[in-house]
């Protein structure tokens, strides 16, 4: 009896299906709310090689939904923790932790090494990046996405009969106006919703690999856990879609995929203080507001480096390994973090969520900050 006996017994799967799973490789992009449940079931099913791609670190606010991680993991790299956990748990497959973000430099080479991709990301830049890379490489991918109590699921770039297959741009040709989309970290969510959608993604992946069942081909599924309603929508390839996708890997590398939540790491004030307390000498606090903006701040000791002068002043923070950026609301610090993550790619650059408006900020919670 091996650990896969119960699925080998399943009609239509059998030893043949199990061999397919064990010979398959899947890249899971994003080890967050969707990625955690997907990874657990893909690993349990015995997928031979699983890549876990995520440059983010575990924070306390992740734990209501990112069920591979616990309190003791906060501050650690998600990809590394997940790969170690699954290796320890099963040990009969290969789990590769890839602790960085997908970008147009690495996407083609990375995705090229896998049979199938799960899009478990939390931002549009990554979703279009994965879509275009998978179309260029002719790889199927299973996309999951959530908004409050609703989830969206689809299989793209795959048709079992070789007929024309839809990709994400057949549904949404170009990325939406990002300003109106709520911040990835600010929209409230119950853990079970990404749990359900991520588990569905694993189910679709297993169906495609084993060629068993009817995957969501040219179909989008919407699920609402608040009202228990679901909706299946038929989509068709659009004749104009191919013009939107880069024509070659070289053109792909030159394309600007723009702003992404994943390229910006964010922390709460409490978490930022934790980073500072661990490495006080290597950490710098930076106020990216314009000079003279109120409230003025005494503590923590910080540099003033307004967003508009960021490039000229970059020298003054180059000697620090951890850079904690803040502004009034968290918006400018996020833009600053995005810029600095590119120019200082080897540093840990964080934007502090909520900015000085946050109730726990040094402007609003002076007692907390006076002692340090």
């Amino acid at each position, binding site marked *: 009896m091996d650990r896969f006996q119960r699925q080998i017994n399943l009609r239509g799967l059998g030893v043949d299906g199990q061999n397919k799973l064990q010979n398959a490789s899947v890249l899971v992009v994003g080890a967050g709310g969707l990625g955690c449940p997907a990874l657990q079931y893909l690993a349990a099913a015995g997928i031979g090689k699983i890549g876990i791609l995520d440059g983010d670190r575990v924070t306390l606010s992740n734990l209501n939904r990112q069920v591979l991680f616990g309190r003791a993991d906060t501050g650690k790299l998600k990809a590394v923790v997940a790969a170690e956990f699954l290796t320890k748990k099963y040990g009969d497959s290969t789990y590769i932790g890839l602790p960085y973000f997908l970008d147009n430099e690495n996407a083609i080479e990375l995705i090229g090494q896998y049979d199938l991709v799960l899009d478990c990301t*939390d931002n549009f830049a990554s979703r279009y990046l994965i879509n275009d890379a998978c179309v260029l490489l002719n790889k199927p991918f299973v996309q999951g996405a959530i908004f409050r109590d609703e989830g969206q699921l689809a299989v793209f770039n795959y048709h079992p009969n070789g007929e024309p297959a839809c990709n994400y741009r057949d*549904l949404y040709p170009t990325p939406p106006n990002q300003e109106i989309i709520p911040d990835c970290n600010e929209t409230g969510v119950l853990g079970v919703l990404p749990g359900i959608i991520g588990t569905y993604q694993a189910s679709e992946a297993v169906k495609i690999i084993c060629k068993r069942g009817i995957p969501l081909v040219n179909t989008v599924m*919407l699920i609402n856990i608040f009202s228990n309603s679901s*909706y*299946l929508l038929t989509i068709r390839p659009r004749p104009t879609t191919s013009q939107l996708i880069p024509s070659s890997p070289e053109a792909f590398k030159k394309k600007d995929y723009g702003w992404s939540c994943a390229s910006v790491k964010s922390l709460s004030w409490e978490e930022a203080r934790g980073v500072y307390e661990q490495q006080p000498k290597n950490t710098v606090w930076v106020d990216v507001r314009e000079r003279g903006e109120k409230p003025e701040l005494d503590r923590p000791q910080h540099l003033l480096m307004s967003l508009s002068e960021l490039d000229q002043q970059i020298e003054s923070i180059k000697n620090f390994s951890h850079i904690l950026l803040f502004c009034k609301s968290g918006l400018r610090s996020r833009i600053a973090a995005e810029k600095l993550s590119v120019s200082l790619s080897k540093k840990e650059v964080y934007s502090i969520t909520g900015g000085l408006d946050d109730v726990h900020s040094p402007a609003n919670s002076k007692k907390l900050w006076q002692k340090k």
Partner: protein
Amino acid sequence: MDKQKIKIRAFGLIAEKMETDDFDLEGLHDTDGVRMALLGKFPSLEKIDFAIAVDKELIDKNTSLKSGAEVALLPPFSGG
């Protein structure tokens, strides 16, 4: 002339902005008309990109509607 009824199903941010996800509109005969009527009623929708499906099939151009047709408004989701 009778006023034909169209059923509206809204998802995600669109449902949130309209504060409802399920209602009827009367006297409309194509999807462009539905879009105009909704923008008139809910101006905040103007800044939101969304796809439209008629009777559970995605459309990419103005589509005529029969009485009882269901028009779904589908904004993209990005969360994970």
